[in-house]
Structure formats: C-alpha cells, structure tokens
C-alpha cells in the first residue's frame, strides 16, 4: 500500500477564477508509483474550491456567474466583523459560501498507473477571493 501526499502551489491571478489543474493531478498520480487505487484532491482553503466539469471557458464563466447570483456580494453577512485571531475584518462571506456550494474536493480512481476520468471531465481549482497563492492537496493511495 502506497500513500503519498503532494501539495500543489497555485498562484491565482484574479479575484475569481477557474484554474485547470488536471495535468498537475495526473502528474502526481504518475509520480506516486500507485498502479491501482484512488486519488483525492482537496483545497486547503475555505474561500476557494475544487470542482469537476467540462473544461471549456464558457462553462467556467457560467459557474462563476451563477455562484455570484446565488451568493450576492452585498448581502448582510454576519461575517462582516473584526476577527481578532486574524487582525482584520471578515467581509468575504460570499467567497466562503461559494466554496461550500461548489465543493472543496473530488476523487478519481487510478487504474494501471493512470487517473481514470471521463473524456470531458476537467479538474478545476476555484478561486473565489484572489489573487493569492493557494495550496491544493493531492493524496494518492493504492497498490504499487
């Protein structure tokens, strides 16, 4: 049994963005030595997300637009107060809620050393409050 954890560093460059990380995940699987098993991908942040959808720009835009419609920036959020542990105010409740709605992790099977996914399935790191350097955890588990 092999269990390997890779921390991907992702520099987002916009306030909100859908960043295709499929190639990095596939590389982590190949480098792990796992022949048959699972890969679990998880964002390390609560104002970002992970989701799987078809990898085309129109859908990337639709997802961000729809989430913004579901979670308006100007709602009266309780989070808008001073957070003493952070030394600053919290006013990104919309980003946290988008993270919850869009999800924060995904999982794929591994077969013969390759990540198995549908032909249209693309893994996205979702930035909801950038630009920031973010960490995405990729844990590969299975038999050699």
């Amino acid at each position, binding site marked *: 049994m092999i269990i390997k954890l890779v921390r991907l560093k992702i*520099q987002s*460059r*916009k*306030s909100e963005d859908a960043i295709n990380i499929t190639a990095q995940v596939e590389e982590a699987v190949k480098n792990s030595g796992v022949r048959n098993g699972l890969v679990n991908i998880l964002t390390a942040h609560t104002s970002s997300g992970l989701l799987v959808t078809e990898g085309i720009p129109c859908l990337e835009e639709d997802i961000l637009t729809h989430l913004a419609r579901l979670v308006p920036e*100007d709602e009266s*959020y309780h989070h*808008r*107060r*001073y*957070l003493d*542990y*952070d*030394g*600053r*105010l919290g*006013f990104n409740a919309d980003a946290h809620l988008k993270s919850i709605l869009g999800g924060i992790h995904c999982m794929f099977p591994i077969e013969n050393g390759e990540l198995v996914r549908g032909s249209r399935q693309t893994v996205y790191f979702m930035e909801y*409050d*950038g*630009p*920031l*350097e973010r960490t995405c955890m990729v844990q590969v588990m299975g038999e050699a």
Partner: protein
Amino acid sequence: MIDFHTHPVLIREFVEKYPNYRRMAREVFQIGNNFQPLETFLLQMDVAGINRAVLLPIDCARARGDAVSSNEQVAELCSQSARFIGFSSVDPLKEGAARELEQSVRHMGLKGLKLDPALQDFQPGDTRAFSLYEAAAALRIPVLIHTGMSWAPGTALELGQPLLLEPAIRRFPGLNFILAHFAWPWVWEATALALKYPNVYLDTSCLYYDSPKEFFQFVFSKQIPTTVIERSLRNKIVFGSNYPRVEIKNMVHALNTLGLTEGFLNKVFRENPERLLAAATA
C-alpha cells in the same frame, strides 16, 4: 492610481531571511493571514487597478522590541519593483533620529516618514519629536502618521487622537501631515484639522466594522456628509487601503460606490498623492 497606505508585513520571502519578521507581524502588528510571495502583493494591486503603492515600515524597536517591517526591508522591496514607493520610519525619541531619517532618505531612496504613536509609544505633540519633524520638513518629505484606533494589541487608544498632533502641525506649516485612517472615530476632529490647516491631509484607510462599502457609506455620508468630502476636502484626501488588513480591491470598490464625481476620485487616487510625493522627489 496610487495606494498611499500599505504594510509589507506578509512577504513570504522575508520570513526566512529576517528572523523576527514573522513574530512582529503575528504578535505586534497582529495579522493572521498566510504569508504570501511578493508576486501576490503586485497581483493584488493589479486587480484593484493600483499602479503604485506606498510601503510603510514602523520603527517600534524601543517600545516593542523590533520593527514591524524595517527601512531596509522596504528599500529592498523598492529595489525589486518600481511600483513601490518606500517610506522611512524612525523612532522620534531615539537619539540621532533626525540623522537616521536623513540617511534613509538620501541613501535608501525613501520618500516619506511613517509614524505610529500608539505602536512607537510617543505623544505626537511631544516637543522631543520636533527635531524629527524638522528634519522631515528640511527633506521636503510628507509625514504619514497613524491616527484613530489601532488594531495592534497593547496600544493606547488615546495616542491616536488627531488633536494631539496640532502643536506639530502649527509649528511646521511647511511639513505635510497625512492623518491615516481618517482618524476614525475622531473623524470630525480630523476633518477640522484638514479644513483649517493647509498642511494636513487625510487617507481613506479606515475600516473598523461591517464591510468596506458599508463603512465608507457610513463615515463618508452620515458621519461626514458627502458634500463636505466632495466640496471641501477634494484636495486633502488620498486613497489608502491599509492592505493587508483589507484587500486593496475592496477599498477601491467601496470608494467607487459612494457616488462621488470622477473629478474627485481622480484627485484622491492620482493628483493629491502625486502632489504630496512630488515635493519629496524634487
């Protein structure tokens, strides 16, 4: 567009290089966000539409054991990007303060003086600080001074009262003072100082509750009528974000939603800060 108020306290590259950097950010300045590569700072400016940012160190070694970002660190960042405008910070009660300021301006290329009476533990009207003000006036650099409430733990609220600075404002009419954070909650006192004295300016980096948009709408329309901001203070306000206590983009957006005229916003984002900095580079 210029952001006149940022703190380089979360630069990842400095964490390993400067042993006290992390502790001063976490325990003295008290900020809990992740350290980020310098690139993130520049990207935060990009998404906010900010071209240049003033970097503010705080020399609080006497009162707090070390600096919250040092002059050397600020100068180092300025050498890495022409988009940064570095200010110097010197403890006014330190022996040789005036000389240290002069050296940091002449040899490190720093363009202004940053003071924080609450963190540096001094009375802004204390005549012992006057030799430093005199040096700043001779160097033709502006002084950005913390006024209003400070989030830093262990700091006295009363040292942020803007009227404490009035003796220095009167004694050095040729020295431009920028009262940071609009001196909230003493916004009327700060407004009165800016209305009365040609050498007093205000920066917008105030955010103490609610969201930037909600806070600005309260302070800049209910506490101080928007008409006063727009008509009487149009030449006396500079944009400041207080990044990274708040993202620059949120403060820019908040200011842009107040219904102020384009002419006013152009002064706040461009003309007023450029005029203040021009004297320093002349």
